[in-house]
């Protein structure tokens, strides 16, 4: 009765167009008022307490770090590198688009933003080199979803907060599935391209590959900073996110210079990047050795800084003047960059995203709290276990439920509501919580390309001018690949668990 009221109120509110956060919150509060003894005061306090959740504190920092690097300039650099890497295979341009989507999604963390940034450049490029437009659109629409698996992933942070598993483990668990999905898509493209006989690109010279890598690596290093920091035990995921935000600020304004006071000023990203690397490395090394707490990391940083200098020396034949200019700019323009209008703009836009997401999360937690006080997870677990479900049957139910839910709700809200229900059952059936997390994330990924609210479909239709049905038709075969991937991830736990177990040791 209580639960029926809760869900009926929620769906009625959503249906008439109430914002998701308010729908979740109002249905939860009215249920509490009518059926429970909780006070309004403790309910209101829960809103506040969401922001005191240490794991969730990583979310604003990840959003900020991606806001500094989600520019068209970064997209172009990553695309160039991807084309130089795989462009020469048959269907290489499409494969490179998948690779570029993976790169960009890792840096930006948002799937629709990835489709827009990468898609608006590569779809036109593919059509120009003789690809069918539907082929191009279908590939991009699906490849844009890969970002949620590749760390840093905000959805994973939400799952970790909902279930108290370690963010570090979960991030690491996403790496192999992310690569697998990318390779499966590229494999399918290769087969399809052979059949259609699409043109190849000329193989990029080593010089071009190196130049492209030198340009792209500064954005991609973000992932290394985060994963290295967490895995090396230097900082917590939340701190890693804050460090990533500062790093992105420097890369965005001083290395890539797509924004800020140095916008359009001369110099190569390679030079500015080496300067940043050397400054950061010497700082890390000095502090590491003087504090004596993390010598291995300090030594590694020193090595990286020295390596950067050597590579730079070899590339330029030892012309240090550009390095000095860049260093001077870094020091002199730092205050100007900090207060630049574009920096403020990035902060405000990241602030908007944070507010929107956290308002939903806070209310979803309230909603989940009502479910827990009504002992729903307990009842469902008993039901599933008594009915004698085997693990594979349970996981099938999980997949179907989540794909359906993903069509109507915001992913992080779904995770917060469903994860506490699924987790006890999974534990009962001997399924690793990390594995369950990856399965749930992959389902959210597929929800992005299925109607009626598949965001990527809308975005692809927006950038190509194709209508929605056409995009859906184009996306369907590639969506099949993703479904195949979902089955693989669901029934082969090792893909998810191999890396985290290797790094941290088995959890059970």
């Amino acid at each position, binding site marked *: 009765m209580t639960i029926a009221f809760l869900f009926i109120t929620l769906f009625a509110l959503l249906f008439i*167009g*109430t914002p998701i956060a308010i729908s979740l919150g*109002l249905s939860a509060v009215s249920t509490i008022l009518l059926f429970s003894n909780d006070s309004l005061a403790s309910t209101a*306090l829960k*809103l506040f307490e969401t922001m005191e959740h240490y794991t969730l504190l990583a979310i604003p920092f990840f959003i900020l770090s991606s806001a500094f690097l989600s520019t068209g300039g970064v997209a172009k650099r990553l695309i160039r590198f991807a084309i130089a890497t795989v462009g020469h295979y048959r269907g290489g341009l499409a494969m490179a688009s998948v690779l570029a989507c993976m790169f960009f999604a890792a840096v930006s963390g948002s799937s629709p933003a990835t489709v827009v940034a990468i898609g608006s450049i590569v779809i036109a490029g593919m059509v120009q080199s003789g690809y069918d437009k539907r082929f191009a659109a279908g590939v991009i629409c699906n490849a844009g979803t890969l970002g949620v698996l590749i760390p840093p992933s905000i959805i994973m942070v939400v799952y970790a907060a909902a279930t108290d598993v370690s963010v570090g483990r979960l991030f690491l668990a996403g790496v192999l599935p992310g690569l697998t999905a990318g390779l499966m898509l590229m494999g399918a493209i290769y087969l399809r391209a052979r059949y259609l006989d699409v043109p190849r690109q000329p193989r990029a010279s080593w010089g071009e590959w190196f130049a492209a890598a030198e340009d792209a690596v500064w954005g991609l290093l973000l992932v290394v900073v985060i994963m290295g920091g967490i895995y090396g035990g*230097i900082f917590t995921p939340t701190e890693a996110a804050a460090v990533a935000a500062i790093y992105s600020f420097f890369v965005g304004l001083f290395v890539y210079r797509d924004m800020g006071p140095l916008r359009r000023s001369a110099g190569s990203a390679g030079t500015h990047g080496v300067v940043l690397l050397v400054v950061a490395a010497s700082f890390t090394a000095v502090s590491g050795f*003087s504090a004596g707490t993390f010598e291995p990391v300090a030594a590694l940083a020193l090595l990286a800084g020295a390596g950067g200098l050597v590579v730079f020396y070899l590339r330029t034949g030892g012309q240090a003047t550009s390095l000095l200019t860049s260093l001077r700019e870094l020091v002199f323009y730092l205050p100007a960059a900090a207060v630049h209008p574009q920096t403020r703009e990035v902060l405000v836009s*990241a602030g*908007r995203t944070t507010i*929107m997401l956290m308002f939903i999360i806070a209310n979803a937690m309230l909603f989940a709290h009502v479910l827990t006080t009504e002992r729903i997870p307990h009842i469902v677990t008993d039901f599933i276990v008594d009915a004698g479900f085997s693990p594979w049957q349970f996981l099938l139910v999980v997949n179907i439920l989540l794909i359906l839910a993903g069509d109507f709700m915001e992913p992080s809200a779904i995770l917060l509501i469903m994860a506490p229900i699924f987790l006890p059952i999974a534990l009962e059936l001997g399924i690793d919580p990390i594995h369950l997390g990856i399965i749930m994330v992959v389902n959210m990924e597929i929800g992005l390309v299925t109607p009626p609210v598949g965001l990527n479909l809308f975005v692809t239709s927006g950038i190509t001018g194709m209508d929605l049905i056409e995009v859906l038709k184009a996306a369907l075969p590639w969506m099949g690949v993703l479904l195949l991937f979902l089955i693989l991830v669901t029934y082969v736990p090792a893909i998810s668990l191999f890396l985290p177990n290797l790094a941290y040791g088995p959890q059970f």
Partner: protein
Amino acid sequence: MRTFAAVIDRLEESVIALIFAAMTLLTFVQVVLRYVFNSGFVWALEATTYLFAWLVLFGIAYGLKHGIHLGVDSFQRVFHPRLRRRLALVTVAAGLAYATLMFIGSWDYEARMYKIGIEAEDIPVERWILRLILPIGLALLALRLVQAGIRIWRGEQESLLLADEARIALRQHQEEANQR
């Protein structure tokens, strides 16, 4: 001349940007201090979480005005405009019910904390002051909802502007393209 509303907008955005910058820098500095000086501020973590809460709770009302809150609006499009407008007014009422109930709850909580006079864990300030943004934010939300309701009533606005991530992504891309 800039209108009053534009000044308020600018002010709200500055508050958001400043709080965001402060919490990021504070966390970063904390990491650096720990490694360079083997020290740090005991109050830093708690201060960061309070800043975070102020950022979000302050921003909800700002977000309502600018239509950043996600919602599903595909169903209503098939309705007759008059019905659509009535439903939009119902959503405003739902929002007001939410804001009012939560406001009452937060007021109760604040009153209790005020009476007890308990301080935060690491910051030597009374807890009710640090959490004052809860009733303030909800009151601001109610204010913005009433304004939106009036605009819908007068027919100046169709619904509570709902955001949709697809549209946001496309618009941001358009803006960036226009800058070039």
